[in-house]
């Protein structure tokens, strides 16, 4: 589904991502791990269009998306979440999802201003779909709360809901479990699993090793911008290069 060849990104003299080759197969649950500063988020930025690669090629479903703008890539089916600002803070929870919902064909500019019958029908459809998504992620009771006022864990889930509303075929999750307690972690993992069952391919960056190993079928390990290992969770756990990368960097292992 997603083919990455020789992807590299230089910032001045610093090589943040270095000749990474990778493939994500449709219907997979793939984990991307590595010590802090390994280049994982930069990698996501390159794939999602937030950053332009210095070298390399990214192909999605046969289409070359290298260096395209983020909204183009999102429109083609790759949606990512963010570690930082992943919600629209001043909108309500429901509005967050409503904004992110598109339809194909979407609501036209003129028809939305004129509030034609067609556009109102589409808006109702969006509203229904948004409520369904909120139910799916378990935030439906909080639909009218202002996003900024949510607890941290709920904000992260809302971020996933927002991404979901954009109808991803491939979902790039950037540390979705960040700052969550154990209960929230297992709920979110279950949610991600449900999404996967629903047909969405998952590519996940996470520091929570246990969760990643449990969830993902396949793992790719980055260190200093390079891919150093790839395989099933068991293979990775036993891989000496991986162990060295984490111990050497003082990171935490599984």
């Amino acid at each position, binding site marked *: 589904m997603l083919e990455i060849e020789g992807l590299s990104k230089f910032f001045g003299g610093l090589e943040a991502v270095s000749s990474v080759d990778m493939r994500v197969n449709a219907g997979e649950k793939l984990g991307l791990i590595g010590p802090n500063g390994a280049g994982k988020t930069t990698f996501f930025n390159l794939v999602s269009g*937030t950053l332009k690669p210095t070298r390399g090629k990214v192909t999605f479903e046969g289409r070359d998306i290298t260096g395209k703008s*983020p909204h183009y890539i999102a429109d083609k089916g790759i949606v990512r979440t963010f570690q930082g600002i992943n919600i*629209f803070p001043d909108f309500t929870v429901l509005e967050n999802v409503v*904004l992110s919902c598109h339809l194909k064909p979407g609501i036209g500019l003129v028809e939305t201003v004129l509030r034609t019958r067609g556009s109102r029908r589409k808006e109702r459809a969006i509203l229904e779909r948004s409520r369904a998504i909120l139910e799916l992620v378990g935030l439906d009771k909080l639909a009218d709360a202002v996003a900024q006022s949510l607890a941290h864990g709920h904000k992260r889930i809302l971020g996933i809901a927002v991404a979901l509303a954009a109808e991803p075929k491939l979902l790039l999750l950037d540390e979705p479990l960040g700052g969550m307690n154990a209960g929230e972690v297992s709920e979110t993992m279950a949610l991600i699993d449900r999404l996967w069952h629903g047909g969405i391919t998952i590519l996940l960056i996470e520091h929570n090793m246990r969760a990643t190993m449990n969830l993902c079928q396949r793992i790719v390990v980055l260190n200093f911008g390079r891919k150093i290992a790839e395989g099933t969770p068991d293979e990775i756990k036993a891989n000496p290069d991986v162990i060295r990368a984490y111990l050497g960097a003082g990171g935490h292992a599984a």
Partner: protein
Amino acid sequence: MIPSLAGITTVCLFLLPLLLSGPYYIHVFILTMLNIVLAASLRLINLSGQMSLAHGGMMTIGAYTSALLVMKAGLSFWVAMPISGFVTALIAYIIGYPFVRLKGIYFSIVTIFFSEVVVLTAQQWQSLTQGAAGIFGIPRPNPVSLFGILHVNFSSKVDFYYLALVLMLICLIILYAVEKSRIGMILRGVQQADSLAESVGIDTTGFKVLAFAVGSFFPGVLGAFYSHYISAINPDAFAFLFTIYILIYMTVGGENRFFGPILGAAVLTILPEVSRPLKAFEPFVFAAVLIAVIFFVPEGMVGLPKMLNRALRSSEKEPTHA
């Protein structure tokens, strides 16, 4: 906005000229209505998170375009006026693409510069604009007859008043419709979280340009109105200070609500005309009000009731802390 309140206000505005004594006050109200639309349209651009100071330049372009189309190309005012609006919208659309890529304060600077370039072009391009002296003798709008009975030939200020009133209502309805539509929601989303909006498929650059272009349509139209109303236009008519005043109306009125700029423009245009001492010290009063708003009432005048409410309620209850 309570619809019935808006309805009543509109009716009052239609009846107002009957009450006002003298053309001077009619002029004040015409200016007020222009300022209201200018402030409200500036706010549309502001919704997407861009602080534009190009309104002065757009107004100048609109004024000259209409004057020249009517005087040199022989078009009717009623054709020239909307064209002026589309010209400024188009210019905004073209310069919008390179401009909106710039970060907030830099976007503002280049819009300031744009307005200045317009002024200088008007001063220097003498063959087109007659240079620094400006254009005189701009004809009044062509006479119209409404419903076959009412004949308006724009020989008195009252005629212009009603034209301004109709224009204002149409413009505000358009602005309100845009804001309440999905476009408005997208613009607000872009302002809150630009990258997030991109990541869910929203063309943030495109929408920022759209806001800039649509917002710049209105000063174009009003510029056309103005030049035919005053019968003259010169390059400095809408210089930097003009745009600053519109910004003040919007900020003092409250940039977070649709009604804010309307309130701000109305109060700040009318008050100095009613109170002589206020007029004499206008710049100081405006500066003081502006500073007061920024420091103490960031929501602007529209936010005042809520603030007072909160203040009153918290002084009634025993202080409890969450």
